[in-house]
């Protein structure tokens, strides 16, 4: 175990967290019914930590990110109930005009694909300045933008460039600059390197690591890539069909996962270091169910290799197992048969 990471975790757990999600239910209205892509009991991002939210596609990771900002890409989605306390302010309760200020000043968002999210006919510099102005920061806007471009490794010329003149890696740097320009203490990054080539991904991961250290930033990093989680996260939350199934420190999650889903994910992950070619991989059977067909009881029960009677009937709560929190009946004294 890396001693540095351990100390960091210990010293920060005392502080009030930068983000605390409690009993969050996010819903999407579709004709005739409403679906619940997110049902999170509790998720905490301590100050100065990098927290990974990992899961497969359709598990609700991006919807969780949008919930944190309480800003959704579709009008059909909204927060049903719960609280999202961001630096002391509840994003669910606060009025929309307040929220606009909080977004940007307290939390910056980094997306997967910037090719689509910048206005193609406005220069990069203007778009970043616009960010500052909408969040009430009028002084020295240009100087601020130039300094944040420099921070993400882009030269001053980029200020007057248009988005199409930049490569994918450069655009992603601009995306990070745009999240940082109002100096928020928290960044939510949704698959920030998924659209990039591996050598460019390495550049962006190094950049995120160094900025995190420099600014003592808190980051909620959403990814499906276990390698990236291992690389930069302090804490990990594993998500399955809208719910957290296990969380804990990155070292414990990777060394001794306690939830069968986490175990399956880790065993199925390929590695450049794997020794055997054509070795049969341990794979989780079946595939992730859609939101219209959520299984009863434990949502993983139809794919789990350890399913018991109770698993089909009742949803498990969290159990502490060697410092990890796992939502699984196997860890209930009454139901586990060791």
């Amino acid at each position, binding site marked *: 175990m890396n001693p540095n990471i351990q100390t960091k975790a210990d010293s920060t757990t005392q502080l009030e967290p930068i983000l605390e999600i409690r009993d969050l239910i996010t819903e999407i209205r579709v004709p005739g019914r409403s679906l619940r892509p997110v049902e999170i009991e509790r998720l905490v991002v301590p100050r100065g930590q990098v927290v990974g939210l990992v899961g497969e596609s359709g598990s609700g990771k991006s919807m969780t990110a949008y919930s944190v900002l309480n800003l959704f890409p579709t009008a059909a989605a909204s927060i049903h109930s719960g609280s999202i306390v961001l630096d002391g302010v509840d994003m669910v309760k606060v009025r929309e005009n307040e929220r606009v200020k909080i977004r940007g000043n307290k939390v910056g968002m980094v997306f997967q694909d910037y090719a689509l999210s910048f206005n193609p006919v406005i220069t990069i510099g203007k778009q970043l300045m616009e960010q500052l102005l909408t969040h009430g920061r009028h002084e020295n806007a240009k100087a601020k933008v130039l300094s944040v471009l420099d921070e993400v490794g882009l030269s001053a010329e980029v200020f007057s460039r248009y988005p199409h003149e930049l*490569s994918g890696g450069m655009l992603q740097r601009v995306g990070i600059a745009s999240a940082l320009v109002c100096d928020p203490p928290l960044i939510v990054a949704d698959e920030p390197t998924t659209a990039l080539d591996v*050598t460019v991904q390495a550049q962006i991961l*190094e950049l995120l690591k160094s900025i995190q250290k420099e600014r003592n930033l808190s980051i909620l990093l959403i990814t499906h890539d276990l390698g990236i989680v291992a690389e930069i996260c302090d804490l990990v939350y594993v998500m399955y069909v809208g719910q957290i199934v296990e969380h804990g420190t990155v070292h414990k999650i990777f060394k001794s996962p306690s939830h069968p889903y986490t175990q399956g994910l880790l065993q199925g*992950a*390929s590695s450049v270091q794997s020794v055997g070619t054509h070795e049969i991989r341990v794979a989780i059977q079946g595939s992730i169910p859609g939101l219209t067909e959520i299984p009863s009881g434990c949502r993983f029960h139809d794919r789990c290799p350890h399913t018991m009677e109770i698993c089909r009937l009742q949803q498990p709560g969290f159990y502490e197992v060697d410092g990890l929190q796992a939502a699984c009946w196997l860890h209930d004294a009454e139901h586990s048969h060791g």
Partner: protein
Amino acid sequence: MAETTLLEIHDLAKYFEVGRSLFKKKQNLYAVDGVSLYVRKGETLALVGESGCGKSTTGRLILNLEQPTAGSIFYRGKDLAGYSAADWKLYRQGVQVVFQDSHSSLNPRKTIRHILTAAMFSSGTIPRNKAQDAEERARALLSEVGLRPAEVFLAKYPNELSGGQRQRIGIARALSTNPDLIVADEPVSSLDVSVKAQVLNLLDTLQKEKGVAFLFISHELSVVRSIADRVAVMYLGKVVESGPVAEVFDAKVHPYTEALISATPIPDPDTTRNKKRIVLPGGVPSPMDPPKGCPFHPRCFRAESKCATEVPPTVEVAPGHHAACHFAEERFSSYESMT
């Protein structure tokens, strides 16, 4: 050509003409630029590299979906350039394809039954008047790719299936003509971690049972390591290193191979945080204006002065292991002395 060689390509090139307009001169885009490779019976050769390096174009040339600008392709010892109609029929049965996204490559208006039997009819694997035979074969194929009970899946439409199931249909369709070579272009890249492992297992099992060879095109080095026998690493339309997968990944003779492996995160916190990471500067240069000398030299951390002017030759550093770098032999001997 060795007895066991199924496919062999020599100095294959594909240039696209782009940017032709009233004021601009047309320019060449060097998508594939002098690639030589071979695939043996029953093995998996992986073609790996970053986006735009020419992997897919190489696959499309082999599949005859694109015509080469130069070079030649031999299948079972015979040059495609001299093929007769009968040769092409054998080729269409023998060489099949699986795409990344079976969603767009499967006709959404046809049932799985239709999709599979149509592939057998059009390739001439089963004559059109033997509909019963085709149906039975479709059933057997579905079971083989793990879609059971087969009757249920025969009647379904592609959009009624999950991503992993559709990819299995794509594999069943490829198998329907009894091929000995399947070109698989990013066949698991869009699949979730858990489903990806299932499909990789299926490909391994099918290869073992049927002896089919794969040209496995992928940008995921971790997947390549676990499924390939041999690997060819591409950069800017050229193969920069090729050989047995374990040796290439361990020796990392070419600096680009070394950088790719070093950039790939390992799903283990202790290992991935303690390894030294090579971070290459910038991005891949435009294939319209590839650098002079060694195409990798503007980003290479081992470059010396001659790299900017002299094209490095491709040398064989060990049996079946080639690399195109001025220092390939030195690099391989230092690897050997370490092991």
